[in-house]
């Protein structure tokens, strides 16, 4: 397996060059009037229609790590690994419910990140900062894992692995990432949006061919399932229990369901997914996409089945064993053993390009968070849009270098542990981001303390979970009240309970709450255009200046398509949280 195949390598290199050209060319795609506005660099002009959004969100949700890790999990443990399929089934109905409201409020108020929304909703810098920092912390290891995905492809191809020098070994990865960093810097979100087309053509081709071709070569599905079940029923000498099962056992159902639900809820609050949502042109684009994005879920299910195919091929099992039992190599190895070398090159390109797209989106999303919630909020409140864009570009580079450092310098297990923690952490921002879309009931201080409680509990619980030969961070599920539960869900429940109780306490003691800068109509608004100038005035002064949202509303009222919610005074009265006059004096922020 360490013999470099020239054909496979040439095809991978060609795919990389093609993607690089597209990346640089994308800077000229749909040129903006004002390219130095964060709406342009960070959200691709907020003008992606259904078609582009489909590719962009697909590129967001299905990453290289998914393509490597999910079949690896299926390869090692069987049915338990299929929670990823269940999770990507339920994520779209969930997105259908929440995403349009988040899109509307972001569009009406000119928010680029969820951190700004939370800051505006609660008038709380601290809460906005907590959301932004959590987002950045959770994203960094996620980018690093994209590199781990590329690395496993390169390892199987034999690139660099034979060299004694660590620098030479890592060189291909460094070059690849430097090139991605360069075009992301230049073109912003437009680059991954365009490259996602290539990525998807490669992935769909690979998966369809694999499904038609490999089972025949391995002796049919019957043989694949029976080979897998023979392995899974074998007792693992390390644990004294079977390796896994072909169907989830009753004892594992709770873990399976909570993992799927927790991952689905967490996905929606990951910054790179909200970035993809905010980049949509219209409110309807998101809902229409939830009906079409399941095409990726189907592909994910088929990719998961590759894990069983790898199990049915003795040569793959032998090579995985030779590599110290690294199941992450199983899919690249399967491709190498099953496909002629030219098609193995296409399949490997699919994984590598599949890593570059989400890595770019994630670094942009994290850069947006840093710029709007940390730089503009704390360091330079009077930053011009051009300064914001410059800072965001720089931040995206720093994110990439940081992720590269993670992937190269730190132990691979460490990245995976951090990713596990990232999933737990990011879900703790769910109450502040998603529940706030519906109610402003929670007190801002209660939400911060709830968030902290969830973070601490989740981290400690993950640390205390042994498994997979590790004493700590051995798995993402732990026993809670006798059920094996996804730690993130348990932490979220604790988070909510703390926030609810403290909200009652703080209300009773009359602790000062923040000023809500959003209006009820913002959550259902559907403005046709976002004039950059209007967005700028709104973001510069987003503390509810009267008529802050007027430009967008005016255009939608003047356009031929009325917005979803005409300002209905009765309804506004019902939902608006306008403090009574005697209360108003207590609010520090600028008043409407």
């Amino acid at each position, binding site marked *: 397996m360490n013999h470099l195949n020239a054909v496979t390598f040439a095809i991978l290199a060609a795919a990389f060059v093609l993607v690089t050209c597209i990346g640089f060319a994308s800077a000229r795609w749909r040129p903006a009037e004002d390219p130095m506005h964060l709406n342009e660099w960070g959200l691709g002009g907020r003008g992606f229609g259904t078609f582009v959004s489909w590719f962009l969100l697909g590129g967001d949700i299905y990453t290289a790590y998914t393509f490597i890790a999910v079949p690896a999990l299926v390869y090692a443990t069987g049915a338990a690994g299929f929670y990823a399929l269940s999770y990507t089934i*339920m994520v779209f109905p969930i997105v259908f419910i929440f995403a349009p409201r988040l899109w509307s409020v972001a569009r009406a108020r000119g928010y680029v990140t969820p951190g700004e929304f939370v800051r505006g909703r609660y008038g709380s810098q601290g809460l906005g900062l907590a959301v932004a920092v959590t987002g950045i912390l959770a994203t960094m290891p996620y980018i690093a894992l994209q590199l781990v995905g590329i690395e496993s492809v390169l390892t199987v191809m034999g690139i660099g692995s034979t060299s004694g020098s660590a620098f030479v070994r890592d060189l291909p990865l460094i070059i690849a990432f430097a090139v991605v960093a360069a075009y992301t810097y230049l073109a912003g979100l437009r680059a991954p949006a365009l490259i996602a087309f290539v990525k998807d053509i490669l992935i769909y081709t690979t998966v369809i061919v694999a499904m038609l071709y490999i089972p025949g070569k391995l002796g049919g599905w019957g043989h694949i399932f029976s080979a897998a079940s023979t392995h899974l029923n074998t007792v693992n000498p390390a644990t004294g229990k079977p390796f896994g099962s072909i169907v989830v056992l009753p004892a594992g159902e709770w873990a399976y369901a909570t993992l799927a639900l927790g991952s689905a809820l967490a996905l929606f609050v990951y910054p790179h997914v909200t970035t993809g949502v905010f980049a949509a042109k219209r409110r309807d684009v998101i809902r229409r996409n939830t009906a079409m994005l399941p095409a990726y879920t189907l592909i994910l299910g088929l990719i998961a089945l590759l894990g069983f195919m790898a199990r049915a091929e003795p040569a793959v099992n032998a090579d995985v064993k030779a590599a110290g039992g690294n199941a992450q190599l199983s899919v690249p190895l399967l491709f190498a053993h099953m496909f002629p070398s030219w098609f193995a090159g296409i399949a490997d390109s699919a994984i590598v390009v599949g890593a570059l797209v989400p890595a770019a989106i994630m670094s942009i999303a994290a850069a947006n968070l840093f710029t709007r919630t940390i730089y503009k909020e704390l360091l330079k409140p009077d930053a011009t849009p051009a300064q914001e864009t410059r800072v965001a570009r720089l931040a995206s580079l720093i994110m990439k270098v940081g992720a590269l450092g993670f992937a190269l310098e730190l132990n691979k297990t460490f990245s995976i542990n951090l990713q596990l923690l990232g999933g737990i952490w990011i879900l703790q921002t769910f109450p502040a981001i998603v529940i706030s879309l519906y109610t402003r009931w929670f007190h801002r201080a209660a939400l911060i303390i709830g968030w902290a409680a969830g973070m601490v509990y989740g981290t400690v619980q993950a640390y205390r979970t042994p498994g997979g030969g590790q004493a700590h961070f051995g798995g993402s599920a732990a026993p809670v009240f006798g059920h094996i539960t996804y730690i993130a869900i348990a932490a979220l429940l604790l988070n909510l309970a703390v926030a609810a109780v403290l909200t009652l306490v703080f209300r009773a003691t009359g602790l000062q709450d923040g000023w809500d800068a959003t209006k009820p109509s913002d959550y259902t608004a559907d403005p046709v255009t976002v004039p950059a100038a209007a967005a700028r005035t709104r973001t510069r002064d987003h503390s509810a200046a009267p008529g802050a949202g007027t430009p967008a509303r005016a255009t939608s009222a003047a356009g031929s398509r009325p917005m979803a919610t005409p300002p209905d005074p009765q309804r506004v009265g019902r939902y608006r949280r306008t403090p009574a006059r005697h209360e108003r004096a207590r609010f520090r922020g600028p008043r409407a």
Partner: protein
Amino acid sequence: MAQPAPPGKSPATWGVVTVLLIVAIAGALWVPIYARSMPKLGDFPFFYWFQLIWVPVTGVLCWICYLLLRGKPAAAARPEHGRGRRQ
């Protein structure tokens, strides 16, 4: 997941949408429904083919919900909408 009904959509429409989305989520979330190997479809245990089939079902349910919630005036605004405005 009842949402405060925005004006223009009847509570009945929101009710139907809520039910459809709950069905879509429950089909994947309620593991005991499909944690079994029989009946098989071809060589595929029930666990696998049920989940794979539930994927397009979810897509169709989301599409129905989208159609139900799509604003009526959207049809009239179609020509303008379809021109792909750019900024």
